[in-house]
């Protein structure tokens, strides 16, 4: 098997960037929403839960389509963000990252929720009696204790972002160097005669990246678990 072409390298680099940014950007909102869903009872909680799960339930193409409508240049949110903050998603790599982040969001949130649910609330109480404001308690007790869940969520989010295709290509198309991630490139290969080689090549690259990511995450998880295990 030959090496990757420059365009393929571009796609690989882009995919890594998109997946990393998607994972990183969804982390804080993911933790926040997981905490809300797991710990708070508020009006609209059920609805929020459903919304978070939608990217999983709906075909990716539909998600991409909603994104296109909502976050496109002429979409209500897209227009607002572009005007107010100059953040443009449409047909930019940022849009690909947004699509990937959203597709991975339910996975991230679920993993973190599971971890939050298994935190011993008595430890949080103990921290409270020692004078820690609830925000501090979250920061110095809850957060360290849910690190395994956060890591698992990040793995899922990153892996999903590496494989995400439907929503991304629907939302931001597949422009080489800007929005053509590995899955888009693989897709294009599968659509033409003789593309199998290219598709396999990129598939292998994906697998190698995911091996590296998993290895890293396991290493992190082991370190963290050793600290957390009671």
């Amino acid at each position, binding site marked *: 098997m030959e090496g990757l072409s420059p365009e393929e390298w571009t796609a690989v680099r882009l995919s890594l960037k998109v997946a990393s940014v998607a994972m990183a950007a969804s982390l804080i909102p993911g933790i926040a929403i997981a905490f809300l869903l797991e710990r708070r009872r508020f009006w609209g909680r059920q609805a929020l839960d459903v919304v978070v799960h939608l990217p999983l339930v709906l075909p990716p193409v539909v998600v*991409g389509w909603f994104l296109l409508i909502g976050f496109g240049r002429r979409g209500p949110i897209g227009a607002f963000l572009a005007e107010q903050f100059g953040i443009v998603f449409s047909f930019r790599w940022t849009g690909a990252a947004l699509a990937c982040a959203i597709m991975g969001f339910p996975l991230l949130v679920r993993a973190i929720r599971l971890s939050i649910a298994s935190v011993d609330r008595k430890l949080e109480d103990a921290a409270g009696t020692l004078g820690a404001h609830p925000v501090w308690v979250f920061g110095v007790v809850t957060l360290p204790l849910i690190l395994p869940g956060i890591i698992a969520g990040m793995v899922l989010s990153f892996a999903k972002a590496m494989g995400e295709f439907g929503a991304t*290509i629907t939302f931001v*198309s597949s*422009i*080489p160097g800007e929005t053509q991630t590995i899955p888009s490139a693989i897709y294009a290969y599968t*659509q033409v*005669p003789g593309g199998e080689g290219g598709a396999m090549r990129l598939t292998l690259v994906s697998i190698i990246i995911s091996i590296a990511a998993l290895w890293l995450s396991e290493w992190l998880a082991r370190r963290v678990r050793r600290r957390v295990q009671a």
Partner: protein
Amino acid sequence: QSRDVVVFAAASLKNALDDAAAAWMRDNSGRRVVVSYAASNALAKQIEVGAPADLFFSADLDWMDYAAAKSLIKTESRVSLLGNSLVLIAPKGSQARIDLRPGVDLASILGSDRLAMGHVNAVPAGKYGKAALEHLGAWAGVKDRIAQTENVRAALVLVSRGEAPLGIVYKTDAVSDPNVTIVATFPESSHRPIVYPVALTKDSANPEAVAFLAFMRSDKVKPIFEKQGFTMLSRAGSGS
């Protein structure tokens, strides 16, 4: 500093268009063509919401018509550039001998097996295939035995892997796969002409795009497209 030419093209055009773009870039060093390959419908919708495309190269007429109806393209630039033909294929070594004449009985050949083809409402090749089968009076017999795929290449794979004993794909796809044999070619009269229309988008202000479109209409690219099995439509014009 000239901008890149951004082409939104149906994914099935990848090989042909990559080669054409390479040829153009060789001839006009410093200019770049960037092609985003995806499904025609996605591309049309994207152009509708303001995608930075200069050219839209659709795999069928429906989505070009959609774009035209929404005034997303410069109608005067629209041209039906490429043609293709539809064939019936079988796995290599298949003994099937079929003459695609009106009244042809595909159902008995299929037996309990499936006929692989693109989605008959969604995928261009599926739509053409359905029309052709209807034209030949074979649709009723096979309509419950169809395995509809997301794209025509997937139908090819199904036949090539031996999952389905028969499939309907483009000739361009069939000739490239050594694991399938073309059993018969659908008569051109049995379906609407298979054309790949291309047009400049309404918002495109890139002169290079005009130049690239002109290049694609020139004789220079003819061998490139024909090498991939397409026919250059000589009657290139308004093309609907």
